[in-house]
């Protein structure tokens, strides 16, 4: 699934500009604990989180996660947006809570670990 399709499904705003729009996302991880994210090893994954701090971008970088979705109406800080743009990571923001955003993506074909 492409970034613009993800944005459409969860009514998300795309906050970064220079990411690769053709990235294909197959799986996702929903978590507020970054160490839990680091225990997850699927590739072509996106991260859904309610946590706003620079370590979210760092964690995505370490895990090769190319798309991060911030939920519950939280918006990434400008410093996070520039850090993400530097690393080629796309940031999205949606008003849906974590469970609903995850469910909508699951319903549209994004799967979790091991599937």
């Amino acid at each position, binding site marked *: 699934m492409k970034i613009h399709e993800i944005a459409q499904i969860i009514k998300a705003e795309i906050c970064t500009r220079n990411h690769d729009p053709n990235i294909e996302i197959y799986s996702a991880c929903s978590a*507020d*604990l970054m160490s839990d994210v*680091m225990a997850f090893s699927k590739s072509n994954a996106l991260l859904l989180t309610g946590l706003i701090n620079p370590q979210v971008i760092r964690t995505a970088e370490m895990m090769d996660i190319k798309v991060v979705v911030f939920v519950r109406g939280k918006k990434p800080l400008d410093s996070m947006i520039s850090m993400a743009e530097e690393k080629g990571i796309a940031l999205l923001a949606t008003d849906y809570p974590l469970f609903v955003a995850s469910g909508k993506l699951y319903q549209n074909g994004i799967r979790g670990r091991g599937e």
Partner: protein
Amino acid sequence: MGTVVRDYVIPANDFTVAGEASSRVRKILTQLGVSPDIVKRTSIAMYEAEINAVIHGNGGNAHVEIDENKIYIRISDEGPGIPDLELAMQEGYSTAPDSIREMGFGAGMGLSNIKKNADILDIQTEVNKGTTVNITVFFNRP
């Protein structure tokens, strides 16, 4: 290829730069053409150790050596040390304060994540003296 050696300072309690050393090492490994799986395992192990040094060790130092066979990382701090290492290695066990949990860490997964991703993990720790975490990742597992 010759041995690549790098040293980084890990500042104390500064979450905005925590992970900077790991990010730089990741860049070097990618530039050297190391396989993505090895880059990811090394990045996770080093990043968790770096975060630990920030959270628990009042910052510290990272020393990295990359040769043709392996990546060796030493993260050392002069923090409080780990009184019961076996307990600290258990998933879910954490002494991190709530302020750290609010940052998304302190889930008690750090050391086990390092162990899972490193080929060799050696931790030297002494109460009131500090902790040194030695991580080795081989390009080809022996």
